[in-house]
């Protein structure tokens, strides 16, 4: 595997357990179903109003009224349930979604996340990001270790506008798995042949090393 995004998605897939209700964000998280162990059955939730999201439809089998939060066509799994936006976000805020996996621009060493806005950028939208990271029982961030300019994304404190504070539990990059244990960031695993020195060089957050 050479694509960093696939390394991240494959490792993130191992974090998910049978029976969980999971909401996957746009980008790397959307690649996770392709890496799930066939024995692991999860229920995918999409915030625009569906529990039991199935794979992308074959060409010619697209239902225009059946989309995910990225506005891409999906299919229904057996037992799928459709509902309205207010109900969907009640599920999210109410803690009924077990795990959300999503990307981030920055994560801090205390689990703060910034992923909705770059000041001066051309984007103006928060969508369901704040609801999801605030309400889900477990927040897993999948992101490359650095920005395209090579700056660390796992930082002492976020500099970009916050999505929520202290909510992130796991961070998976192409080189490492970090976990928030209590209020402490811990490096627990190296990925894809990375060394502890590589990870240290691309991480400005303070962390403890406890490789398993």
């Amino acid at each position: 595997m050479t694509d960093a995004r696939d390394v991240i998605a494959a490792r993130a897939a191992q974090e998910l357990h049978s029976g969980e209700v999971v909401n996957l964000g746009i980008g790397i998280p959307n690649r996770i179903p392709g890496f799930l162990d066939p024995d692991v059955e999860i229920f995918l939730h999409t915030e625009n109003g569906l529990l039991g999201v199935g794979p992308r439809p074959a060409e010619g089998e697209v239902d225009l009224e059946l989309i995910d939060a990225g506005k891409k066509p999906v299919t229904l799994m057996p037992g799928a349930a459709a509902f309205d936006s207010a109900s969907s976000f009640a599920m999210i805020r109410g803690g009924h979604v077990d795990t959300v996996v999503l990307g981030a621009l920055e994560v801090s060493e205390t689990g703060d996340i910034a992923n909705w806005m770059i000041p001066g950028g051309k984007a103006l939208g928060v969508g369901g990001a704040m609801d999801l990271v605030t309400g889900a029982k477990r927040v897993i961030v999948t992101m490359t270790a650095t920005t395209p300019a090579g700056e660390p994304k796992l930082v002492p404190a976020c500099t970009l506008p916050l999505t929520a504070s202290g909510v992130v539990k796991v961070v998976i990059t192409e080189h490492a798995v970090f976990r928030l244990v209590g209020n402490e960031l811990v490096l627990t695993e190296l990925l894809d042949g990375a060394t502890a020195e590589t990870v240290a060089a691309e991480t400005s957050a303070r962390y403890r090393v406890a490789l398993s």
Partner: protein
Amino acid sequence: MAATRSTAIEAIAEIPDGATIMVGGFGLVGAPLTLIDALVEHSTATDLTIISNNTGEAGRGLGLLLRQGRIKKAIASFFTSNPEAVEAAMTGAIDYELLPQGTLAEAIRAGGAGIGGFYTPVGARTELAKGHEERIIDGVPHILQAPLRADVSLVYATWGDELGNLRYRRTAQNFNPAMASAGALTIAEVAEIRPVDGFAPEDVHTPHLYVNRLVQSTLSLADVQGAGA
């Protein structure tokens, strides 16, 4: 009261200048396309406040209303899918309010349900908390969100009956049920209008007491699907 059958043009003609309008849909899916088209082509109502998840797309749906300069203010969770709306908001050409999607949905639900507002942890201590009262509940910061109501709600349902009972399909449901409840005048666009008792009472999603005007849909998602929904 039962809904009144009406054409899209007749129904849209009831919208005055300065009206606050809720428009259902997640992108174009579940959007009342026939009513939006009538609003763009056959109404001159201006200074409008639009409450909708996305404010349309560039040159499509509500995006056309923006191009016509008829939007005074937009309340949404995600403007990014319409770069022209982002530009208008950032340059001050329109007023805007950005809400987390779940807060937007719940504020509309609260508006329809007679709730005077609610405290939510979502957005607390972020930039979107500005102007919202904060209160600590069970040790967690929450912010107060006011309800949203509209003069007119434009909604879409795949099925309806002649009284105005509505039933939605798949992910075309989204904001429509809450918006149907929060409009002083709710205009429902329906693809298949059945006689009364056309479906079982327990299959009704939006009971007819929320619906004032019933319009036959003449523009489908397939009709407007151009470059990417």
